[in-house]
């Protein structure tokens, strides 16, 4: 009982840095969608059914790289119960320049139309080649076996360094590297070169007393959301369509699908289901355009759901990387120069997160001389999708490993070393802009004083620390507050709720209106309900959504004041909104009884009609979030298994609107990082086929693998947000790879430069040093 009480107290009662002027923001309020989620009532992507519904299935390439000479659907389409089939011939081609920014990634429709359905070539094992819709799954599967595809199997390439070599099999025969002057004459797999930095590296390294240079390699990983991709499409004979899908952005999905189906955006209505995890992997479309195309042909609804095998082989993943880092420092611990060269697998099409990785790699530091170069490299893997702080965990893994080694070499405490070089307000970031108010120093100082860092390690254990950084974004966001006739308020937002954002947005709406929380009921509107909303990604929803709901509340309050002023027949300037009520002020003070929402709502019709607070904005000024992680590990020297014994996440949230869900982001990110650092990796056979496309062999952390994850929420307010919010969702995945690697080094005195540090790799390293 005592242990439980302690746990409970740790969780519930402390860490509130609550501003006493706030009633809801900063509390651990009930979650609006909570009961639906604990009773099984909540509808996820695969949970919707329609009358007369067909089941769609995808035929996928068994080859990592193959030219498609022909596809014969005739036998499949002749099978009784098969209602439609689609191939490359059913989707438009787009020119190479058809690009459009979307969230943290860039969308290229030439590539997207080829990614959802192979055209000239199948570019990875699992690449969609054809799809059918049939009366049930069994018939659909049988139909797939009747599709005849004539492949010319081509040599393939998976590894990023192999893909960069002259003479490597070309994923795209006409690809000329962008970002190189003069442009190369020969095609290669290198889609793009990027470079960031400032100062003079030669000068910086000439001032260094110690220079450490290391090369790192990581294997590709998957986001690992538990809910497979799923959708249900219904096209009607008049060219209108509806789509229900599990997505991080139904407006973005609508745009992609309309483009791929060549239809007006307004004729496609998309409803986002509850989403069973995404982590960036559900920011793009896979099944949705296929289901729509099949439904258009069959004139019946078509449901499509990926198997777990398909999720691993054909969706997500993120890059594996090869990275070279060189950092120099003076004896007293000042970094004089930092350089990194990052090479990332993009998969079958350009667009790896290497630009963000190059921008973030040195972001925690205030450096005079810094340069990062990134290469975006095609290979025969699925096109990478965003994964929680896309790219940053890799670049910062390499840099934070070398920083740790420098601190050790110079015999300076690793947190002290970081503090000596930490980025702060006014620092020129390593990628360009000057930082505004940031919490890098605050997170490091909190770590220094944390009980975890001050505690003594058990024999054989190692401790590691690492910093992490993510930009966070804002973007286009709309919200509406509808005043109901009983004074309650319906909040409509347009960003899928992936981890509790309905709670935080509702709390901010209630706070801004000054009303009781349970009087505001949120829902996520479909694409016809609101103006455009960018997707849920970039840790943007509580930031940008907060600005939107606050703006909608201000709009509603203005109307409420107008109605009260009209009722009282006083000038609008003599009516203020306080504590959820219209109050007469100035010369009319105490002359009228205050009017609350109910008072105004019940007479809405007479005073001017419905009251709707609206805000549509392109939110700017997202505050970056820094974090610092502390981890203790045990290493079993007989098996090479690394176990995490204690873990603490410290991160700047700006302002934690709902501390429980902020902590949840910190904890979840840390554990995803533990998986990435210690176990997760795609394993390929010699033919470029995935050998571990299931949760048994692609080993994500389970409950018994990890300890409690302690958290500290640092709050350095973001001045551009009404409540000081910074995005928090992505930064937690940035520090773990390096923190754990640094802890293993501390335990074994062996510096690992490859991930994952899985038992076979660790055991081999232990045995090689005797």
């Amino acid at each position, binding site marked *: *009982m005592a*242990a*439980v009480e302690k*746990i*409970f107290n740790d*969780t519930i009662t402390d860490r509130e840095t609550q501003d006493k002027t706030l009633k809801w923001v900063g509390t*651990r309020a*009930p*979650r609006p*969608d*909570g*009961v639906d*989620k*604990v*009773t*099984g009532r909540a509808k*996820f992507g*695969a949970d919707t*059914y329609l009358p007369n519904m067909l089941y769609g299935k995808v035929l996928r390439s068994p080859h990592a790289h193959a030219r498609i000479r022909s596809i014969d659907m005739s036998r499949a389409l002749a099978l009784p119960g098969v209602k439609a089939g689609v191939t490359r011939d059913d989707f438009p081609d787009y020119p190479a320049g058809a690009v459009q920014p979307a969230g943290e990634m860039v969308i290229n429709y030439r590539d997207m139309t080829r990614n959802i359905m192979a055209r000239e070539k199948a570019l990875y094992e699992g690449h969609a080649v054809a799809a059918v819709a049939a009366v049930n799954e069994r018939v659909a599967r049988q139909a797939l076996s009747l599709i005849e595809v004539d492949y010319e199997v081509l040599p393939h390439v998976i590894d990023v360094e192999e893909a960069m070599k002259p003479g490597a099999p070309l994923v795209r025969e006409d690809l000329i590297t962008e970002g190189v002057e003069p442009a190369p004459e020969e095609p290669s797999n290198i889609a793009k070169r990027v470079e960031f930095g400032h100062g003079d590296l030669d000068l910086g390294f000439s001032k260094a007393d110690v220079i450490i240079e290391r090369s790192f390699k990581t294997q590709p990983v998957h*986001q*690992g*959301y*538990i*809910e*497979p991709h799923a959708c249900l499409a219904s096209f009607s004979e008049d060219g209108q369509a509806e789509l229900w899908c599990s997505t991080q952005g139904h407006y973005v999905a609508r745009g992609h699908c309309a483009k791929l189906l060549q239809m007006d955006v307004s004729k496609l209505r998309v409803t986002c289901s*509850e*989403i*069973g*995890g*995404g982590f960036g992997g559900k920011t793009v479309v896979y099944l949705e355009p296929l289901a729509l195309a099949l439904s258009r042909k069959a004139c019946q609804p078509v449901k499509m*759901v990926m*198997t*777990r095998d398909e999720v691993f082989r054909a969706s997500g993943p993120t890059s594996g990387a090869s990275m070279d880092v060189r950092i120099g420092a003076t004896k007293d611990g000042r970094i004089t120069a930092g350089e990194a060269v990052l090479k990332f697998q993009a998969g079958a099409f350009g667009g790896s997160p290497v630009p963000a990785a190059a921008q973030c790699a040195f972001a925690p530091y205030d450096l005079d001389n810094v340069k990062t170069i990134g290469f975006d490299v095609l290979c025969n893997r699925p096109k990478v999708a965003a994964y929680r702080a896309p790219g940053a965990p890799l670049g910062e893994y390499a840099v934070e490993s070398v920083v740790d080694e420098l601190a050790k070499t110079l015999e300076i405490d690793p947190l002290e070393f970081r503090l000596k070089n930490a980025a702060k307000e006014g620092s020129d970031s390593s990628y360009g802009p000057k930082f505004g108010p940031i919490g890098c120093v605050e997170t490091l100082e909190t770590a220094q004083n944390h009980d975890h860092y001050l505690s003594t390690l058990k024999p054989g254990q190692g401790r590691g620390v690492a910093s992490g950084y993510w930009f966070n974004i804002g973007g286009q966001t709309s919200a509406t507050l509808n005043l109901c006739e009983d004074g309650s308020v319906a909040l409509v937002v347009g960003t899928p709720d*992936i*981890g*509790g954002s309905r709670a935080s947005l509702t709390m901010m709406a209630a706070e801004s209106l000054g009303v009781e929380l349970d009087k505001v009921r949120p829902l996520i509107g479909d694409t016809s309900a609101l103006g455009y909303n960018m997707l849920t990604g970039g840790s943007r929803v509580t930031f940008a959504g907060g600005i939107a709901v606050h703006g909608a509340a201000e709009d509603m309050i203005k109307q409420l004041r107008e109605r009260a002023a009209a009722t009282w027949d006083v000038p609008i300037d003599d009516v203020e909104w306080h504590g959820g009520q219209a109050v007469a002020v100035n010369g009319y003070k105490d002359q009228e009884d205050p009017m609350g929402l109910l008072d105004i709502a019940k007479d809405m019709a007479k005073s001017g009609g419905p009251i709707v607070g609206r805000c549509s904005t392109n939110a700017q000024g997202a505050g970056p979030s820094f974090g610092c992680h502390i981890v203790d590990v045990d290493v079993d020297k007989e098996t090479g298994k690394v176990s995490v014994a204690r873990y603490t996440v410290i991160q700047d949230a700006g302002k934690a609107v*709902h501390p*429980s*869900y902020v*902590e*949840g*982001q910190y*904890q*979840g*990110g*840390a*554990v*995803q990082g533990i998986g990435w650092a210690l176990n997760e990796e795609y394993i390929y056979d010699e033919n470029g086929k995935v050998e571990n496309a*299931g*949760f*048994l062999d692609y080993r*994500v*952390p*389970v*409950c*018994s*693998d*990890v300890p*409690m*994850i302690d958290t500290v929420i640092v709050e350095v307010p973001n001045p551009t947000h009404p409540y000081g919010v910074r995005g928090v969702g992505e930064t937690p995945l940035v520090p773990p790879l390096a923190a754990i690697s640094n802890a293993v080094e501390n335990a074994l005195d062996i510096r690992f430069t490859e991930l994952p540090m899985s038992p076979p790799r660790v055991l081999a390293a232990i045995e090689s040093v005797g």
Partner: protein
Amino acid sequence: MTREHITTTINGDPVEFLCDAEQTLLDVLRDELRLTGSKEGCASGDCGACSVTLDGRLVCACLVLAAEVEGHEVTTIEGMAVGDQLHPLQQKFLDHAALQCGVCTPGFLVAAKALLDRNSNPTETEVRFWLAGNLCRCTGYDKIVRAVLDTAAEMRG
């Protein structure tokens, strides 16, 4: 193809359904009976999102053939709350914010209830190993384990 006629009990109610011999219990719960609280995350028994109990024993519905439940008792997440009274585990999951996206939550709740039915006073380690067959990618498990331990403490009184 001839379909099997199955008579069983689900969440205490008599239920009859027709199924193909190859259909799993999960297929039937979801696609035939529309009890979609049980989720398919892997269809191979690795993720636990389809956890149900069969005669009180915790199983993955994706690993049980639908025809096997003839004459047996199945309990799913839809049978956990009684009327408008949430089971204490459901309430504690909400109190502790032990869910983010929520897709694994039904499986965790069914699995955790099966644990507490057997062991009213589990240690943290026992909870972690019992729930090791349920994958959660969002929470890092911390708040889930706390919610289960807190529920056990409250139910012991």
